[in-house]
């Protein structure tokens, strides 16, 4: 009875957990309060109802068979992982149906069900071997194979593998101990061969010791043929109908051979019941933990795949898109495929911010979406990582569960803009993506990050009237390195012919460039010569240069004007963001 109580308790925790998780899909957001949870539930119901009666239903069906059941997307990115996933999923599902729920389900299908009979005896082992093989591949993939492109393994990944492995191994040990156990044998003999006399039971025991791996303290090989013949007779009368040979449980049987030398000792101790409860409790723990572990993806990922098959920003209700994005955080299995194909992942080696890696950034986003008050530092770190993204869409194309990562980054970037932490990478062509998506950005927020970044840089260098404090030796190096032909001295060659300014397309795009751009290109070079850093770094020209290289190309003195501008931007951004980070840490 307490066993079934435990089952119901863990089932209740599991269901409550799932209900809680599903509720977060409608309650959480990246800081937007535009929709209430209720309106999001209504929108989702309406959307699903409409889809059900539209032609999109066919698209959903196709996605269901191809991407949900067959996992076609995973097969495309990694046949090895596809195999491992199928081995684990297939094996475990069959064990769940045939073994864990076997007492309830099997009699519905088979007329003569005994867990000790074939095919059940054999199939249990067969499926367990499938799961263990799959787990072996997963362990090899994650821990043994030396793969520099693989993202870090999180504790969640380890727990998942560990729980599955513990269930399988505890089951295997339990069964092996039972195979060798003479007390189990005697219990069963007492139950099924109760009518036999002591001598017959002894010969039966001898027969089982000889043939089925039971280890008996009182009987030892070799047995005489007569005893075995008698044992066989008793066996055929009492046991054979309901018990297939133990060898059919090939994995357990093989393992039981290993423990034969200590089998008698194990039978005497509480090992059997320990493993029995261990196996049982780990299964229940796994069940209760499921909604909070990454295995929850078995619910979230199919929904994510199906929803993304029919939803996009152009057509779908914004409330539903918001819900979908929170769901996508749960659908992620942390498989790392996105990071493997990320255009920027490599850079994580020199900039140690894990939020550069899409798979890790997604983990951070769970914090952001959870509505928990993120510290400025956390926001800054997420933003820093996120804003190095080139938006090349590779992650979205390869995600095996079809998460629209690109959209997710877009929403989060805008959600972080509201927090008003200056983001200096916005002053680079990385902003092109944002500019192209202007129509989907709140008009009041659109120009905010640019003005914030410009202001942060102007503030940073405002006080720098004293020229000698301008560069640290490190920054001097950056300036020298930015283009090997960029020599400080090259600026000295400038004699102010103004060809750079006259040829600059940006200067020509303004009516009053002198006042609107701060410094014109030739003045910028001159200011660098004079080390007037506050003038240089607060001039708009520095940030409006398109990098077309006309000035550099046409300069009669070979002043590398465009490369100089890139180098100056390097210094401005590195120094300002360093100080922003320092200030943020101080405010903690």
């Amino acid at each position, binding site marked *: 009875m307490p066993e079934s109580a435990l089952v119901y308790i863990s089932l209740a925790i599991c269901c409550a957990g799932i209900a809680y998780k599903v509720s977060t899909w409608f309650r959480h957001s990246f800081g937007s309060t535009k929709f209430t949870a209720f309106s999001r539930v209504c929108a989702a119901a309406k959307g699903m109802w409409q889809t059900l009666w539209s032609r999109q239903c066919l698209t959903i069906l196709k996605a269901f068979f191809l991407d949900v059941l067959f996992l076609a997307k995973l097969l495309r990115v990694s046949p090895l992982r596809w195999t491992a996933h199928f081995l684990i999923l297939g094996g475990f599902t069959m064990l769940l149906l045939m073994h864990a729920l076997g007492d309830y389900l099997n009699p519905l299908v088979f007329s003569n069900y005994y867990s000790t009979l074939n095919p059940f005896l054999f199939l249990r082992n067969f499926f367990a071997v499938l799961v263990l093989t799959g787990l072996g591949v997963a362990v090899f993939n994650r821990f043994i194979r030396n793969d520099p492109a693989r993202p870090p393994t999180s504790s969640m990944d380890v727990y998942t593998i560990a729980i599955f492995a513990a269930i399988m191994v505890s089951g295997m040990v339990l069964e092996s101990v039972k195979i060798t156990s003479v007390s189990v044998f005697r219990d069963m003999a007492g139950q099924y061969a109760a009518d036999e006399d002591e001598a017959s039971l002894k010969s039966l025991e001898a027969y089982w010791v000889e043939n089925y791996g039971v280890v008996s303290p009182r009987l030892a090989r070799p047995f005489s043929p007569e005893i075995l013949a008698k044992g066989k007779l008793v066996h055929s009368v009492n046991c054979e109908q309901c018990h297939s040979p133990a060898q059919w449980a090939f994995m357990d049987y093989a393992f039981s051979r290993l423990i034969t030398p200590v089998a008698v000792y194990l039978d005497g101790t509480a090992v059997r019941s320990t493993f029995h409860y261990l196996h049982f409790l780990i299964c229940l723990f796994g069940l209760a933990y499921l909604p909070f572990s990454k295995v929850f993806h078995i619910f979230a990922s199919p929904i994510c795949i199906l929803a993304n098959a029919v939803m996009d920003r152009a057509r779908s209700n914004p409330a539903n898109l918001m819900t979908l994005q929170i769901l996508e955080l749960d659908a992620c299995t942390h498989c790392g495929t996105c990071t493997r194909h990320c*255009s920027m992942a490599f850079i994580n080696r020199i900039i140690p911010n894990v939020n550069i890696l899409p798979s890790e950034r997604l983990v951070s986003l769970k914090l952001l979406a959870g509505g928990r008050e993120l510290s400025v530092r956390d926001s800054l770190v997420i933003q820093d990582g996120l804003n190095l993204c*080139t938006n090349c*869409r590779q992650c979205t194309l390869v995600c095996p569960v079809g998460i629209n990562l690109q959209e997710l980054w877009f929403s989060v970037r805008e959600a972080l803009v509201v927090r008003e932490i200056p983001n200096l990478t916005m002053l680079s062509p990385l902003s092109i993506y944002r500019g192209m998506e202007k129509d989907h950005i709140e008009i009041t927020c659109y120009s905010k990050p640019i003005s914030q970044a410009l202001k942060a840089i102007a503030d940073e260098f405002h006080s720098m009237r004293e020229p000698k404090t301008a560069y640290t030796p490190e920054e001097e190096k950056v300036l020298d390195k930015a283009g090997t032909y960029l020599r400080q001295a090259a600026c000295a060659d400038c004699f102010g012919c103004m060809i750079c300014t006259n040829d600059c397309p940006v200067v020509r795009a303004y009516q009053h460039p002198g006042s609107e751009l701060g410094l014109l290109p030739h003045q910028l070079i001159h200011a660098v010569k004079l080390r007037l850093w506050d003038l240089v770094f607060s001039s708009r020209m520095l*940030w409006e240069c398109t990098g077309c290289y006309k000035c*550099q190309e046409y300069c009669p003195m070979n002043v590398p004007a465009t490369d100089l501008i*890139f180098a100056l931007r390097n210094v401005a951004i590195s120094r300002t963001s360093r100080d922003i980070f320092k200030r943020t840490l101080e405010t903690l």
Partner: protein
Amino acid sequence: MSMIFFPCCVVSAFGDHCQSAAKLVADKLGVEIGVGSEFNCCGYPYKGIDFKVFILLSGRNLALAEKHGADLVTNCGCCYGTTKQAESILKHDLSLCDYVNNALKREGLVYKGKSTIRHLVEVLSVSPGIPNLKARLDGTCPGLRVAAHYGCHLLRPSNVVGFDNPLFPSALELLIEATGAVCVPWSQKLECCGAPLIGINDATSMELAKKKLGSAKQAKADLICTACPCCHLQFERTRKILPFESLSEFDLPSLTYVQLIGMALGLEESTLGVSGIQRAIRN
């Protein structure tokens, strides 16, 4: 040396049809270009943020190409110019080259300077070559007036990219004229399209694009043909947001040269990503 296609991030996100068109055209012309998936960003957006990031990214791409014993082929002008610049820097600065190789060690990659990046314009000009192309395409676009646009990074800084004469380039015109089209002279040919300022200063960005569109229109061109898909995206974007009253002055369709050649080759227009208005030019 064999060749691998190098995809551009911005184009992958907004104009993937330009890249698939490039592959289709190369296939049709019998130019063999392999596909690699492990490349990273060329480093272009990071030139102004962190110089080392830019060099590392480009260095890794070149090292990957070297591992395959191939040259990179790109359709994008910015990727081309940026990688070329990184290549030239790495050739001159051995300590920086060591730094890059050190970072690449973990992946078993090394950059020795054997591979380079080539632009598809240059690739097509060499093989099949202009005369062959002409023989194959001549007369397919008779009377079409085209304003050829190179894109800054294909030409400048010329001491780094060494692609063509930076003042009087002709590679793109020769390709376009192989289809029987006429290239018109226009004053803004070598100017910047403004794409790098999208999202930073949209007004200036649009002003630059408008200047180019207006100049091409004044030269009575039927369309602007760009060598770089980013510039094409910028022109198309600008046209979409033009105010109604300036349509007559600035509204001019654009195509990338691969789309133009693809159309001349008789490839399906939908596979080239050629939209309605652009199709109208053809008729």
